[in-house]
């Protein structure tokens, strides 16, 4: 099982915009994400400042940093939960300036949350289908009146939802109320719900939080499998360094809202600035 978690030593540096890292296979392809001089200020606090990052269309990227570094805030900027006070975000080449959360999501970005935010009262299948719904657009009238069309769509969506649930072997829990699932299962369901929107870029905020080593191992496999199967980019925030170093092709380190390093797993692990700011501190904090 562990063998399938492969390191990607072919990751290279490309000259865009300054020191971007994307895997060799993504070279020459349009990046799925370009953050340029992105920043936001809360009162006097620069929570994120001059954040530049390019993510290739099939890259698995990591965003790490000590607690309070601004990682979740970056996700909130990329999904337009916060409107940046500086800089721009390009998603698949589209400028997101002025777009609201809904329309940014429809450009092909989906996410999970550090503190799980499933629709607790809905079933597992309904949660996944909420994601499907907004990709397959059919009008209210056809939904209500064109019954044959309605039943056909219902069946298609049911099958699609079950397909997605099989990724985490959750098909037997389709009718369970999602709020009643164990913690780990809720985390996995949240990934599937995001995946249902057919994103080009999937953002995972601490996907392994609360998982045991065995579950984390499986999650690593599954993240790679999802990338391979759907050919999408995945960017993840994670404190579990085994996961980050094991599957991320490019890693970006944030400290006090600023990028202090970018590079491959080896580069990051051997970077004295990172060791000082992050790894050292983490050991000291006993995490």
């Amino acid at each position, binding site marked *: 099982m562990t063998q399938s978690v492969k390191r990607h030593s072919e990751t290279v540096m490309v000259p865009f915009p300054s020191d971007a890292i994307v895997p060799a296979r993504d070279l020459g392809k349009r990046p799925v994400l370009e953050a340029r001089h992105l920043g936001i200020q809360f009162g006097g606090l620069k929570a994120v400042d001059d954040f530049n990052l390019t993510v290739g269309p099939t890259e698995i990227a990591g965003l790490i940093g000590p607690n309070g570094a601004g990682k979740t805030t970056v996700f909130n900027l990329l*999904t337009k939960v916060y409107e940046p006070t500086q800089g721009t975000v390009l998603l698949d080449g589209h400028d997101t300036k002025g777009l609201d*959360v*809904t329309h940014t999501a429809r450009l092909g970005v989906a996410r999970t949350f550090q503190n799980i935010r499933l629709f607790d009262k*809905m079933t597992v299948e*309904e949660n996944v*289908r*909420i994601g499907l*719904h907004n990709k397959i657009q059919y009008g*209210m009238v056809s939904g209500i009146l064109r019954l044959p069309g309605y039943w056909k769509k219902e069946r298609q969506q049911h099958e699609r939802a079950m397909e997605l649930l099989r990724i985490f072997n959750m098909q037997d829990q389709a009718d369970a109320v999602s709020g009643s699932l164990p913690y780990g299962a809720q985390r996995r369901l949240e990934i599937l719900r995001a995946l249902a929107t057919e994103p080009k870029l999937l953002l995972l905020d601490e996907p392994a939080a609360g998982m045991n080593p065995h579950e984390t191992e499986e999650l690593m496999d599954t993240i790679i499998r999802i990338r391979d199967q759907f050919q999408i980019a995945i960017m993840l925030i994670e404190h579990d360094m085994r996961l980050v170093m094991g599957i991320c092709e490019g890693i970006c380190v944030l400290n006090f809202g600023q990028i202090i390093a970018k590079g491959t797993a080896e580069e990051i692990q051997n970077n004295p600035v990172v060791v000082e700011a992050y790894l050292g501190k983490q050991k000291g904090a006993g995490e």
Partner: protein
Amino acid sequence: MAQFLEALVNGISLGSLYAIIALGYSMVYGIAKMLNFAHGDVIMVGGFAVFILMVSNGWQPLLAVIAAMFICTVLGMLIERLAYKPLRGAPSLAVLITAIGVSYFLQNAAQLLWGANPKFFTILDYGNLTVHIGDSQFNISIGKLLSVAVSVAIMVGLSLFTGKTRIGKSMRAVSEDRGAAQLMGINVNATIAITFAIGSALAAVAGAMLVGVYGVQLSPTTGAMPGIKAFTAAVFGGIGSIPGAMIGGILIGLIEILVGTFVSTDLKDALTFAVLIVMLVAKPTGLLGKPMREKV
């Protein structure tokens, strides 16, 4: 015994009317997270629309009700678009005061348009059903039975709608977690607009029942009392919950009629609200309401 049964039937009938109105409050609260105090006044507009179309224009009852539903739907969506949507994200107190303002606006507009004098509407008489129990008997108005049937149909329809359709599921998602719903690509503004449309169409049906079946006199403030009772019912059942609105509506209707019949007509409103207070002290979230969990 006959008197009790008659009160029971009348209570359920009045309660089902409250339930339809309560659904409007509860759905809007659940999805837009605001108290739409103008809802009662949309009922009044619906009542006037039915009255004018039938009495002055000689329309068939069913056509008049459908036209009133259309008018109220447009009105509800306009109110939402012009008065509430600009306040999305504003403090809830600002929204509440705006809603009260819209309520007074509608009452004054109605007074300008249709005058302040109450209008009586006694066109519909579907007759009575006489029920014999032993040697006693009592009458049930067929109109009231009809209104119960309509209410039940609406409740079943709404349950199917929210349970089975794409828009219904989006409504539930927005009601649980607006932010997460947006991030799933759900158009929250459109979802809220549809919720207002549905609530206002139901208000028109309620207005038609009030004037056509219950013979309530029509004036610019006609919607206020049923509105506040139905709001009570929504809170009683657990605001934000659709089945809660139905059960709350029926219970408030029953309490009102039973108290009015067996205790005192003068006390029926006071006792109805007293029950609400006791209920809220015992279970602040209402019968079916769930405690709010803040998600950040």
